[in-house]
């Protein structure tokens, strides 16, 4: 503007608008950080209600009432349940041509973390709704069981993980098996 001299900071930036820009940065930080901090400081586990159904992609399953949901880790389309020292995760795998392809995909993703190794030949099984699945052992720094269920091109992985010592409660393991058996794609 004619006759108007801009006041500049040492970096050659206009002083005008600096406060407002800082305020905008503060609002943006607040919008993201306030819920993030509130979420981080709140108790991260929600109890499972009787009769509740959880979904993971196109699949759903019945959680066992003695397990608790890890709310934060259950936000990205997966369901993470914690019972004692065991963690049970149901994660959609997207498209897969067969149960075997789905199992290989799930095993590769699990092994990418470096803590677990999927070993042995997987055994076939069927869920209560009759959908085909494969299940195998997880070994390494943690132990557990990897199961996949495949239905019409879609697949889901159910991963049970527990530290090897002390041995997890056998009751919890049976409950995890029941959760896997309840996996289905609703009609």
């Amino acid at each position, binding site marked *: 503007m004619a006759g108007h001299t801009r006041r500049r900071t040492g970096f050659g930036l*206009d002083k005008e608008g600096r406060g407002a820009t800082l305020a905008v940065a503060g*609002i943006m930080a607040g919008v993201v950080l306030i*819920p993030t901090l509130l*979420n981080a400081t709140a108790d991260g586990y929600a109890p499972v209600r009787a009769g509740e159904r959880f979904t993971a*992609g196109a699949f759903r399953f019945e959680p066992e009432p003695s397990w608790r949901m890890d709310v934060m880790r259950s936000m990205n389309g997966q369901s993470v349940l914690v019972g004692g020292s065991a963690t049970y995760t149901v994660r959609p795998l997207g498209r897969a041509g067969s149960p075997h392809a789905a199992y290989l995909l799930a095993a590769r993703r699990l092994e990418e973390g470096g803590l677990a190794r999927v070993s042995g030949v997987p055994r076939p099984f069927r869920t209560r709704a009759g959908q085909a699945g494969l299940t195998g052992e997880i070994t390494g720094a943690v132990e557990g069981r990897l199961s996949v269920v495949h239905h019409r091109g879609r697949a889901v992985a159910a991963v049970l993980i527990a530290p090897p010592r002390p041995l997890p409660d056998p009751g919890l393991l049976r409950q995890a098996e029941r959760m896997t058996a309840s996996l289905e794609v609703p009609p």
Partner: protein
Amino acid sequence: MIRLPLGEGFLRPHRHAFWLYLVSLAVGGTTVIGSLARRTAEAPPGALLLAVVLYAIWLAPVLWFVWRLELFEREPISLAAAAFVWGGLAATGLALAANTAFVSYLAKLDSGFAASWGPAVAGPTTEETLKTLAVVMIVLINRGQFDRVLDGFVYGALAGLGFQVVEDVIYALSIAAKSGSGWVGGLVLSFVMRGLINGLWTHAAWSAISGAGIAYFVTRRDRPLNRRLLVAAVLCGLSWLLHFVNNSPLFVLMFGGGGLLTIAQIIFNGMVTLCVVIVIYRAACRIEYGWFADVVADDVRAGLFTPREVADLATNGTRRRAIRRMRGLRGPRLQRELQHAQIAYGVAKSRSPDPATDPRLAELRRTIAEIRSDIARLPTRPRPRLRPAPRPPFHSGLWRPQEDEAA
């Protein structure tokens, strides 16, 4: 003096806001690209391409429509693109992170409440704030290009469109991943629901409302500060409320569930939002037209504009009607050229430090006079009106029916 294009649009590295914009874009864009990559990997091959093609086809006429909402002075393309990209990358990316944490926090307090009301509480709070900041950023980057309420309306709508398109593509990929072998149908259905049926009166409309509020606060310096604050707060609150109602399960609680009810809810919410947006747009146009009429008031007295011509420039509709009044092949074209020249004159005059000696204005005066003499030489007279011309929608105080009838 040669004027560098730097001052005209977005590229203003001497502004703090310019650098904040770039940082926000990098942070938000990283989140959006990560989310898109994850969902693309989960979805069938071709889902991303189909979603992008569908929304690109949808977006082209919508962008044209929003661009045409400006009556007198189109916004610089670089600033318009900056608002759109902010909505698509910065606002969407930051909202993804904020919404996840917000809904997770609500779920820890009460998972049932979070499942039903979480999107209604978290969505408007984070998304409307972040989209509205697009308009604030444009003001801070280039205040010189931000003159009236309609500017905020258009920038807000563009930011909302950017947000909506990216969000819809992410949703479409999620639907495709869940739909198995029928993924094409699922994706197309998602496009029909979120793009065609629910597209124009959601994010773009809500952001246009809050953008108009910010623009009122920034540009109406002739009004008391309390009033400007009140108008801005009411309009931002209104956009939050419309978004809240759209995301809430209120319809389901009142009338029960069902597919038809979902469509009824979409249509009801859309109609309410559309009515609010039309009222605000007309108010913004009234301000815009009042500004233009004030700028050219001297020229009406000097005979460069007739009162009727000023009234004809009030809206896109009155302009079209004035063009249709002309007969023959050349008449409508000349009338259109006259309107363009008169609008260019008014805008140039408003920006000129010395209108009396400005060579650009002198050139436009000559152009207007030449076009008017061409119109006067047309072999056919303007089509006689069988009924009185409608009153222009916004009364400027310049146009009186008896003057026109006498002419």
